């Protein structure tokens, strides 16, 4: 797995650069809704958090899940149902979605971690497809229509989410909390063990770590954070549909991560912004999104496996390697 996840070599200069980027990014995001369409920005943030959560698994644990749409779309359904049908406030709906995704992750992970590599990918894909069929048939998802007209309500009864700026800053807050959580996980002793599993699984076993538990824990965390992104998206767009649980969605988040840079903090966000922008542009042009997505996939794998951010790191910071 080591070569799939091109590790940034010079940690210190990258860390400095990342802090700078983080500062610029936060200021930019605070100011952005005054210049760009807030819904578009919120869409990017939801997908960016989704991709970062996915990257926690692929980039830092070395597990390629082909079934993350189940957590993203599943959480959207749970949240939308709780808010619309049970009349829960949005914060409770989002928490339920996140918790539901974590439970799904626990079940799926329990089966998937029994195999490695491509088998792991195929098992997650198959289990997510099973969840998709469940969503097609279960009455609460309302089949092809999906759950529509989910009320946004107000956060803790204080912040009115029907106002564009109100919901924008709440989504920004959720996004930052989610990314901070991932950053903390990755840079904790726990995260180090995950990386050691990625680099050399057998060695991690011989050091006495019960890697199955670590993998499962990483899987559940990744699923929960993907669920946080999906539940937030349900509140933003006020609907939850089958689109978000399809295998195409699982593919999309892989592409975002791959395109941005596997195993980097910023990469998945860049990839998500790129793909969401591309999709919105193509939607009006009539050119099929599937073909564009497929071509980018092939080009990424053939030409720049480190992704946009990974290539930038390697190009500009690679010199200080030794």
């Amino acid at each position: 797995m080591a070569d799939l996840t091109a590790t940034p070599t010079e940690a210190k200069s990258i860390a400095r650069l990342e802090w700078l980027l983080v500062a610029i990014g936060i200021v930019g995001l605070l100011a952005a809704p005054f210049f760009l369409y807030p819904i578009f920005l919120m869409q990017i943030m939801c997908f960016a958090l989704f991709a970062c959560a996915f990257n926690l698994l692929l980039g830092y644990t070395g597990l390629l899940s082909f079934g993350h749409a189940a957590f993203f779309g599943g959480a959207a359904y749970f949240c939308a149902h709780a808010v619309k049908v049970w009349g829960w406030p949005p914060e409770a709906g989002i928490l339920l979605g996140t918790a539901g995704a974590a439970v799904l992750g626990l079940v799926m992970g329990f089966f998937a971690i029994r195999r490695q590599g491509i088998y792991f990918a195929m098992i997650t894909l198959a289990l997510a497809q099973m969840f998709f069929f469940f969503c097609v048939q279960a009455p609460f998802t309302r089949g092809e229509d999906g759950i529509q007209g989910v009320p946004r309500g107000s956060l803790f009864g204080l912040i009115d989410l029907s106002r564009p700026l109100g919901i924008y800053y709440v989504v920004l807050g959720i996004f930052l909390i989610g990314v901070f959580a991932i950053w903390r996980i990755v840079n904790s002793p726990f995260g180090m063990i995950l990386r050691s599993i990625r680099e050399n699984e057998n060695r991690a076993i011989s050091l006495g770590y019960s890697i199955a538990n670590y993998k499962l824990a990483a899987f559940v965390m990744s699923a929960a954070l993907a669920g946080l992104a999906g539940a937030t998206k349900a509140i933003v767009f006020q609907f939850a549909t089958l689109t978000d649980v399809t295998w195409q969605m699982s593919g999309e988040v892989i592409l975002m991560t791959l395109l941005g840079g596997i195993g980097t903090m910023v990469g998945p966000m860049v990839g998500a912004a790129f793909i969401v922008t591309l999709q919105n542009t193509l939607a009006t042009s009539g050119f099929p999104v599937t073909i564009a997505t497929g071509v980018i996939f092939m080009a990424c794998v053939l030409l720049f496996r480190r992704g946009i951010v990974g290539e930038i790191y390697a190009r500009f910071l690679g010199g200080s390697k030794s």
Partner: protein
Amino acid sequence: MTMIFGIPLQAFLGQLLVGLINGSFYAMLSLGLAVIFGMLKIINFAHGAQYMFGAFVGFLLLKWLNIGYWPALILAPLVVGVVGMVIERTMLSRLYNLDPLYGLLFTFGLALVIEGVFRYYYGVSGQPYAAPAALAGGTNLGFMFLPNYRGWVVVSSLVICLGTWLAIEKTKLGAYLRAATENPKLVQAFGINVPVLLTLTYGLGSALAGLAGILAAPVYQVSPLMGSDLIIVVFAVVVVGGMGSILGAVVTGYMLGLAEGLTKVFYPEASNIVVFVIMAVVLLVRPAGLFGKDA
């Protein structure tokens, strides 16, 4: 009327036949996946798209050139196989030294492109493709009515699977293939052109998918989406069978098709997830798969 487990015998056998047909396609596709995986160590995500491509080649040959089913049965796999070999030579062959997951991701992109192109021109609705005149109609077997074309599909898939197995186990080329799977460097040192073997293998695997596609065209409708839903089930089949043995992949394919048919009789709601449930159970009991050697 004869009843079996409280279900009319006719309905029971009918669903079993549907299961057997589905199983035939699972078997042919997982066979192709196993052949490609054995040699290239790549999971060919584009297999479903190539199956759809084969069906479309047959459909377009009829529409544009008025070439019927029987020539298409040869031409469709040929076209799909040659396109596969070109892709292998120009792109896929660059990924052999990398983590096998890159092969999965690349072929996933390839599948999206192939599917996207056909979707762009033909939408998502199915196109009808008639069974050849010689196989139209059906035969009354006494206990049930068997449409001739379905019987033909079952027989030909058995022949294809057996033929491929024999070709790999009993011929000289097959022996080279197996040797190159075990130790490509040594085989290359003996003067056998391993890169060409790899190209041929991918071509053969793709052609098998194309052949399954043209066989499927009269059974299911020809639709751009026909491959993508199938391939995920076939992945589950492959996880259950393990890709270690070609015969294992084939047997598992038929078994799971029949299991699906039986589920349709007794509990129709679960019929499209039963394969995944079986996969989960097998993972619990025998993580390496029924016929697998690797963990």
